[in-house]
């Protein structure tokens, strides 16, 4: 559930203004669309003028000189046809512009997401971030397409209609101006009440759905405690309130939307006819002018109705936009690199008195120091929450740290250019994440310039080629969402190959905790072995058997290194490592 947000009128206005800034890059396209819009409005407005001329000059007197009448007919026809064509392109241009604007907004949000630090990902559910990028921007698109464009079109049309009316008859035009304040007043009233009523309805719906969703999830409990009847009552109660809110909205819509606008329309007609009627008592009246005014008034009320009915979309879009901007303004960014240059040649890693806390309260790492010489393997062991993963997170620059320092080849990790770090350090995650695509695209990732041989060599190197070659389509085999059609071992092998394809100097391994199927188990062990050859390796090991040959094993407990040494040394100590070893081998002393 999203937290319902209260936006004051001023906030809404600020959000709206910020949205409008996105129009700037599309000035030219919008100008073209506006120009076309002006043309169509002129066409719309001219039609009744021509008919008026026809009625007053030819129909009423009853004389039809062929030339001028044919000219009039042709003119009318031409205007109609060109208007149809122009309005098509006008509509299209506006929509195109709206789509481009939303695309830019989407790209901005997505780029922002990519630049956020892992800390942000930790505290934000993935679903809500996805919503920001796609659904919320979609709601804004709706507003652009169906509200703003319609609004602009209506304003232009209203202006055009008034210009034509003034041109035809100034006094009458002034009289019809009287309805404008009434319309504005109705719109104001509607906005005022509907924002409250509509909000209320949405909130009730939110409650209703929350209750339903919670009841469905906890149905086991509800039934076990025999509380079905009570829950039904509670639900019906909310349902009833929702119904009442719905009814309130129907009443409001009935009072202020279409019926009210139509009432104003009738008022405009009455004004018009009275004027003509009263004038006719003393002067002659041109019937054609009356016709034209009736036509204008009909034309005028159409878009007003449309815009009014869509005001609620506007409300929704502003809420969505405020959420999108909130994400865009987020300042929990990924750690920055000083980028002073430097190259990782040997791959010597040194942790110097590193302490770290995720939340600024409890330290998850306390004064960690160790050195991994080039080509050596350092293994991290300890139970859940001991700080193993945090060490990797800092080394990989997923989180910023302040206390202590991590050096690679004598230079702080903070100072290498991001590119250098990423290309020289390979991380294999515990949960090998596969992307939608093919095996090939999962090994090379976005690197299209990587030769096929490199991809295949990498797969061969970690012995992933065996299972890949057995696939019907080999490297081009489809990988569905998250690679669910592959076993966890196979996924792991692909992830290995992915890392090997970039040939990193430093290897960071987070060993899988999940049970690997026995078929791939051997391949994985061999793969790991080979990968570590000649690379400095930092490995989190859950199974102690895999790291017995590590040059250094660090045993972590509550963020501290409590034991360090080689496998043999640690066993001889008969401390924590020894107990873990016994536990894993199921040996009961």
């Amino acid at each position, binding site marked *: 559930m999203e937290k319902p947000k209260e936006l004051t009128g001023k906030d809404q206005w600020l959000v709206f203004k910020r949205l409008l800034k996105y129009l700037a890059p599309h000035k030219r396209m919008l100008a073209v669309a506006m120009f076309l819009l002006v043309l169509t409005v002129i066409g719309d407005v001219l039609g009744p003028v021509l008919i008026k001329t026809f009625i007053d000059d030819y129909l009423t007197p009853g004389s039809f000189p062929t030339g001028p009448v044919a000219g009039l007919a042709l003119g009318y026809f031409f205007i109609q046809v060109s208007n149809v064509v122009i309005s098509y392109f006008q509509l299209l241009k506006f929509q195109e512009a709206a789509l481009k604007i939303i695309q830019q907004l989407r790209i901005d949000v997505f780029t922002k997401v990519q630049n956020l630090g892992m800390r942000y990902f930790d505290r934000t559910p993935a679903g809500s971030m996805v919503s920001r990028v796609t659904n919320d921007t979609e709601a804004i698109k709706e507003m652009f397409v169906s509200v703003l464009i319609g609004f602009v079109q209506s304003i232009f049309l209203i202006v055009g209609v008034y210009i034509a009316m003034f041109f035809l008859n100034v006094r009458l035009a002034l009289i019809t101006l009287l309805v404008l304040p009434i319309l504005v007043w109705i719109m104001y009233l509607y906005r005022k009440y509907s924002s409250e009523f509509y909000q209320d309805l949405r909130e009730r719906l939110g409650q209703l759905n929350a209750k339903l969703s919670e009841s469905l999830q906890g149905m086991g409990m509800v039934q076990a*405690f025999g509380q079905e009847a009570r829950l039904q009552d509670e639900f019906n109660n909310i349902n009833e309130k929702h119904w009442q809110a719905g009814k309130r909205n129907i*009443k409001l819509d*009935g009072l202020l939307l279409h019926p009210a606008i139509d009432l104003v329309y*009738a008022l405009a007609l009455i004004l018009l006819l009275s004027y003509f009627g009263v004038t006719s008592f003393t002067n002659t009246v041109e019937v054609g002018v009356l016709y034209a005014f009736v036509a204008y008034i*009909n034309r005028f009320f159409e878009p007003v109705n449309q815009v009014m009915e869509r005001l609620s979309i506007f409300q929704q879009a502003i809420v969505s936009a405020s959420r999108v901007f909130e994400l865009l303004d987020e300042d929990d960014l990924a750690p920055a690199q000083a980028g002073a240059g430097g190259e990782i040649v040997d791959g010597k890693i040194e942790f110097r008195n590193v302490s770290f806390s995720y939340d600024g309260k409890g330290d998850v790492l306390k004064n960690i120091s160790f050195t991994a010489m080039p080509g050596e393997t350092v293994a991290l062991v300890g139970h859940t929450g001991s700080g193993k993963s945090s060490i990797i997170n800092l080394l990989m620059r997923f989180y910023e740290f302040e206390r202590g320092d991590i050096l690679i080849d004598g230079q702080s990790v903070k100072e290498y250019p991001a590119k250098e770090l990423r290309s020289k350090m390979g991380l294999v995650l515990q949960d090998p994440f596969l992307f939608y695509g093919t095996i090939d695209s999962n090994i090379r990732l976005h690197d299209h310039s990587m030769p096929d041989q490199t991809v295949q060599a990498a797969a061969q190197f970690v012995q992933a080629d065996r299972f890949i070659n057995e696939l019907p389509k080999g490297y081009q085999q489809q990988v569905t969402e998250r690679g669910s059609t592959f076993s966890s071992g196979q996924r792991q092998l692909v992830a290995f190959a992915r890392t090997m394809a970039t040939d990193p100097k430093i290897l960071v391994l987070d060993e899988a905790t999940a049970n690997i199927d026995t078929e791939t188990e051997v391949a994985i062990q061999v793969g790991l072995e080979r990968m570590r050859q000649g690379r400095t390796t930092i490995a989190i090991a859950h199974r102690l058997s895999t790291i017995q040959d590590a040059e250094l094993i660090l045993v972590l407990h509550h963020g501290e290194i409590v034991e360090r040494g080689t496998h043999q040394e640690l066993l001889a100590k008969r401390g924590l490592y020894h107990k873990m070893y016994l536990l894993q081998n199921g040996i009961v002393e």
Partner: protein
Amino acid sequence: MRVFWELGWFFKERKKQYITGVILLLFVAFLGVLPPRIIGFVVDEIGRGTLTPAFLVKWLGILGASALLMYALRYAWRLMIFGSSILLAQNLRERLFTHFTRMSPAFYQKRRVGDLMAHATNDLQAVQQTAGIGVLTLVDSIATGGFVIAAMALTVSWKLTLIVLLPMPLMAYMTNYYGKLLHERFHGAQEAFSSLNDKTQESISGMKVIKTFGQEKQDIDDFKRLSDRVVDENIRVARVDSLFDPTISAIIGVCYFLALGFGTYFVMNGEMTIGDMVAFTTYLGLLVWPMLAFGWLFNIVERGRASYDRIRRLLAEPVDIDDREDAVDVRPQGDIVFSLEQFQFTGDDRAALRDVYFTLRRGETLGIVGKTGSGKSAILRLLLREFDHYDGDITFGGISVNDYKKQQLRKAIGYVPQDHFLFSTTIAGNIAFARPDAAMEEVHEAAKLAHIHQDILNFTEGYSTVVGERGVSLSGGQKQRISIARALMMRPELLILDDSLSAVDAKTEEAILSSLKKTRTGATTIITSHRLSAIQHAHQIIVMHEGTVAEIGTHDQLMKKKGRYYEMYELQQLEALVEQGGEA
């Protein structure tokens, strides 16, 4: 249109509202015909120079009165028809909810919550639209269209009406054609959007991989590519979408042209007046909406039918576990005898349990241990009667659990599940879940027994603290203890702790168990646990393995046996040591 028939029961139920609504709609449609006609009259009088103030006042008075009347009627039918449609939604929602409360856990295992939610949200919405806007569109488009055409033909000229209506079917045809085209392209746009959605989802879930390989920029490029596709697909939609308005105005333009051309001819030979012609062209404008509305109607009805079908299918899903006809209406108490030959979950060909026999005397405690999937939970679920298809019999106080009224059986059992589910209400509300009107002292008492009272008092709002998504976040151990307090509030004959102490530390576990032992004398308890310390003191311990009883006995007996139980026990001792950092 079949859906209107299928919803017939509701229309019957709200007969008065619908009939009144439809009559009002017809009346409004009829009144809508007046203004153009009045304009025509006035124009004619002005043209002839015979307009009198009395005539003008009379007709403008009628215009004004009919406008006010229309306003009132429009408001009224909305209330009748739209009001009924939301009532239908409310009614169906209530029925769905009641139905949901009757469905067994087996049902919830095969259906996803999101899917069930969709029935109660999107589908209901579509049905509501059918009963509201659908009915309106159907009646209004026919009535308005009919009245306007009748007015044109009867009060102006039937000849001109025929001529002018000629291009109208073309409009219906074209908009229908566009509609189909749009539907198809819209599908493409939807697909592009959902692949963008998937891409975003994937990038966010795989963010670590992307960061590891420094591929942020490439990934953004990939996203741009996909968003280009979204734009392209949507422009394809816009190309068709933008055709609607121009086409309609083109055809209306042709109609106007015909009206003026032939109208002039008729005016000249005296068949009609100029006022007639003005009235006629105004009528033309009124015909646009009914033509368009028919297109929408099909759309609304189509969606409504599909959705109503889904809702009906869900409501027709049978309640699989229900009270037997001669069900025993007393709260069970006494010994529990479990003698089961075989049980398997529906759709699973492997037996989940086989040959499980034990007797649990009233007032005793039974411990069940075993790995995940060994059948511990299945035993409990059969006791709770979540399933009733199995070979064997389970009796509680000498009567088969399947023969009790469901409500009675549940009253006797206080169940604390593994996945401690708390509702988003206050802590007190959660503890008193089964007895909402219990005295506060009782709630405190239960909380004390579950050793959560002190924790609760430490919250700023104490027992009134709201838990759940919008409230305070509790630790797993706190949730478990609240769940225990909730079960204790029932003063159950049988208390079941289904691995529900896993997240509390060893000391608290011991404290809870001993206070339970003290207060629940004479009442029966079943505890399943990974951690053997929780069941060590039970009167009887069952070790489950692959769906059957591997060992049975007391702690001491099982330790002497040096079998599975013994091994588990020793390893756990070691594990505890490791967790404490190696120092005992």
